[in-house]
């Protein structure tokens, strides 16, 4: 009886967490299909496609957290509320444009998902592969569990290159030589 109960509780414990991994994987696979159908819809303009794409990806990402991480804790906490608000507005626009731009690159390619894995407390990674005609490229989505129990993306490693880490390095380097306002104005335009 004891061993039966033990197995039951242990099984329940793991199946509960396995369920979360399963649902995140399914959600992303479904989302990927929706993205592909928007990208393949020749009946709507690119601008309209972008609006639809952002509607789809917006609830999956925590862009505010991404922005905070890109700036780094020390820099972010030193900003006043007005600067923080301006930064998030500019960063959100930049990151959304960047992400939808990349989605447009891979209209005919397939994204294959492995099952998501919980890697530590409130963190999950989802390994996927972009299958092009000649390559299989790694794309890793990093999720965290928000206070409202939703799993949100806070970083994506595209071919091993972390969006957050890359922006973080660039922001840190820019802020060494520029004022915050100058930096923000550069971020707001296509810098190169």
């Amino acid at each position, binding site marked *: 009886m004891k061993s039966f109960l033990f197995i039951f509780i242990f099984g329940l*414990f793991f199946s509960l967490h396995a369920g979360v991994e399963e649902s995140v994987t399914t959600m992303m696979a479904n989302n990927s299909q929706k993205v592909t159908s928007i990208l393949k819809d020749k009946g709507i303009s690119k601008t309209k496609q972008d609006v639809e794409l952002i509607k789809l990806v917006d609830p999956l990402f925590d862009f505010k957290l991404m922005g905070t991480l890109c700036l780094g804790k020390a820099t972010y906490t030193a900003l006043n509320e007005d600067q923080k608000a301006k930064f998030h507005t500019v960063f959100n626009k930049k990151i959304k444009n960047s992400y939808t731009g990349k989605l447009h690159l891979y209209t005919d390619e397939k994204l294959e998902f492995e099952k998501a894995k919980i890697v530590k*407390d409130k963190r999950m990674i989802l390994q996927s592969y972009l299958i092009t005609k*000649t390559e299989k490229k790694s794309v890793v989505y990093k999720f965290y569990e928000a206070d409202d129990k939703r799993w949100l993306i806070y970083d994506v490693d595209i071919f091993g*290159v972390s969006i957050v880490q890359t922006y973080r390095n660039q922001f840190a*380097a820019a802020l060494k030589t520029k004022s915050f306002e100058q930096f923000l104005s550069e971020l707001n335009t296509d*810098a*190169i």
Partner: protein
Amino acid sequence: MRLVFLFLIVVNLSLFAADADDFNDEFVELKREPFDPLSGYNRVVTNFNDYVFMHILDPYLFKGYEYVAPEVVRSSIKSFFDNLKFPVTFVNNLLQLKFQRAWIDVERFGVNSTVGLFGFFDPATTWLGLSKSNEDFGQTLGYYGVGGGFPIALPFLGQYNLRDLAGGLIDTAADPVYYQDYRQYNLSDNMYESWGIIAYKNFNEASLRANEYKEFRKDALDLYPFIRDAYEQNREMLIKE
């Protein structure tokens, strides 16, 4: 029995306890610039490469080439050269003790060279699910703990670091595209032909990645450090794979 419950409760709590502020630990803090003694030269070369790409290759040469060789043709040509790289990936898989991957390389080469018509097609991936290795001597050195050294940008060829540049030179000993006097198998009859083929191979591959480059460069606030950083992160992932 109580112990079992206690154990489960403790495991549960420790796994799912709220921990709000450890995201920053997952990312590296850029406290000082990475060791980059050639940064001045690298910056000039990167800007030169970018200029050539954006003002000559992309608007003129790639456009013309895409007109005569549609994507399906260019992908086949890339597959042909990828297949010829078999000795390089095979040896490096062996050197990294990835024996299963090395055997898959043998299978892929056998299938693609025959059924895949000299490698122009890749039935090993599409029919048999045998995916391609991406191994080189730079990664082998990395696998054994050799650091990247300092970054080096090369005109027309792009970003490298010292380890990967040295690794790439060593790989030419096994790569049939690079003419070697002492070797039985060579794609060309002499060194000059070999350089022509290499230039064409790189041009063909770059044409396939043109849109990718144009899109990714938009993320740069400052192009050279952006490319250097992305290169190092990508190579790190390939070494870990």
